[in-house]
């Protein structure tokens, strides 16, 4: 039951790797080339690391969160739009099982993209990619889980195609870009409002944690950030289960 749905949700992107895996990796590699290799040397070192080493965790995080978000987001939206969710809703699966399958498939897609990117980073000359492995793993999983839970909620909410794009453009991208992918907190100290807002942005804490795992530098307090992220993702998971149980935009 749960396993079949998980398998279905994974197959939908695995059988289409050029789009689902290739595209995000290519786009992140373009960022690496342009920002890291071309502009990086002009920026110089940040927190005692080359700019590219500093920026890479942010790029991984960006790919991770968007990909784990996309899978349940689009899949659920289409399943609702074309009604093929109905036989799933009429199966003996529980809401928790359904939600877990959608989220886990998204997590795996995010992890796949994230892992490939970290491997690319390991190959790049002069880039520090893994300092504290457990932190890298923990953050990858927690963030993928958060992204997939958000994707599930958006996939349930979206009434049309544009809504998912809307959520991505107006919520996900600003959070990610303002979450310190490209800059250190020190660099924005003078922009008072921004430096305050950034600290409340969960994405900042995600990048901060992964950066600690990858290059060993943390600008914010890790235990605080990690606890917050775990609580947030648990809360989002419960919201997903609650929405499924209520049949929000699923049952008439």
């Amino acid at each position: 039951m749960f396993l079949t749905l998980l398998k279905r949700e994974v197959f939908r992107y695995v059988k289409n790797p050029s789009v689902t895996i290739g595209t995000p990796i290519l786009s992140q590699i373009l960022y690496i080339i342009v920002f890291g290799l071309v502009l990086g040397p002009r920026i110089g070192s940040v927190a005692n690391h080359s700019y590219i080493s500093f920026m890479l965790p942010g790029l991984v995080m960006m790919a991770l969160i968007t990909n784990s978000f996309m899978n349940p987001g689009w899949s659920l939206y289409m399943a609702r739009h074309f009604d093929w969710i109905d036989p799933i809703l009429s199966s003996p699966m529980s809401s928790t099982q359904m939600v877990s399958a959608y989220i886990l498939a998204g997590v795996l897609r995010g992890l796949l993209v994230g892992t490939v990117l970290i491997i690319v980073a390991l190959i790049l000359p002069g880039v520090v990619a893994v300092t504290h492995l457990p932190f890298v793993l923990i953050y990858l999983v927690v963030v993928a889980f958060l992204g997939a839970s958000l994707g599930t909620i958006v996939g349930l909410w979206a009434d049309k195609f544009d809504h998912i794009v809307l959520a991505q453009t107006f919520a996900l991208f600003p959070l990610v870009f303002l979450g310190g992918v490209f800059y250190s907190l020190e660099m924005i100290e003078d922009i008072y409002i921004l430096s305050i807002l950034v600290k409340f942005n969960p994405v900042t804490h995600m990048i901060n944690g992964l950066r600690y795992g990858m290059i060993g530098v943390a600008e914010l307090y890790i235990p605080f950030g990690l606890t917050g992220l775990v609580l947030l993702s648990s809360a989002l998971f419960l919201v997903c289960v609650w929405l499924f149980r209520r049949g929000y935009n699923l049952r008439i």
Partner: protein
Amino acid sequence: MKNDVPVKFFDISKRFGDTLAVDSADFSIHKGEFFGLLGPNGAGKTTLIKLLIGLANPTEGTAEVFGYDINEDYRQVHSYVGFAPAEANLDREFNIFDNLRFHAGYNGVSPREQLERAEQQLKKFDLWEKRNDKPYELSTGMRKKLLFARSMIIDPKIVILDEPTAGLDLETKEAVQNNIKKITEEGVTILFTTHQIDEAERLCDRVAIMNEGKVIEIGPPEELLESGQGDLVRITLAEEIDSLPGKLTRDGLRVELVSEKKEVRATVADGSEAAADIMRALHGAGIATKAVHVEKASLEDLFLQLTSKDDKTVSKENRVGGR
């Protein structure tokens, strides 16, 4: 199973805004029964089915499947019921073989058995050659067959078919009907909806007639016909008339004007007596008649009588089904 009653509705209702799509349905379907749900478009048939299988939340009331409540024990309920919807809701991201095996998997069939059953069903419904096609590459009739095959793949105790024969050619329709009949012989309970009343009359052990959300008649087709209104009187008029004489509409007779307003019809208990009464009323109102027929009423005639609107005029377009 908690009891032996496949389906029992307890005063179940579903409201959409101002529309009462299902209005206090309260009846049971017996074990092994071939049960037909009839009614014009928008009567509430599909909504009633959706309430049963977790696709609609009841506004009031509830239902049970083998004694399990559709809300509290939905997992048991869903494990007993196979459902083929009227409109294809197949998974467009996968081919039809995967559609079937995933469906089996969602319903707890083991991985190996999923493959076996998918193959078996596709072969049984002549779709094996198409196994690698996407659902949208099939013809309408093939999709109907696939939906039926999918509903059967979980070995259900109850099969619910929403318009399983709509849009099928004669040969396929007969094949599907025979398949459905075969299922009932294995003790499976069938609930199906149709607009083809001859089909219901021929196949069903019992039928319920729905109109505007209400179940207005329920029983074996023969009994419904005998329950007072077994004859059909048809009186051909010499020329068109705009409305029936007041006397006829007042008398409590169910009389209507059809066929471009040149025929008067009534489904009644005693045909010859009613024919005489109606003739007298028509002549009394100065309406000339050409011919009188009295014949055994069919379920369709009864259906039209029961579901026709207040003005008692049923135009050809509004007639459901037809033969």
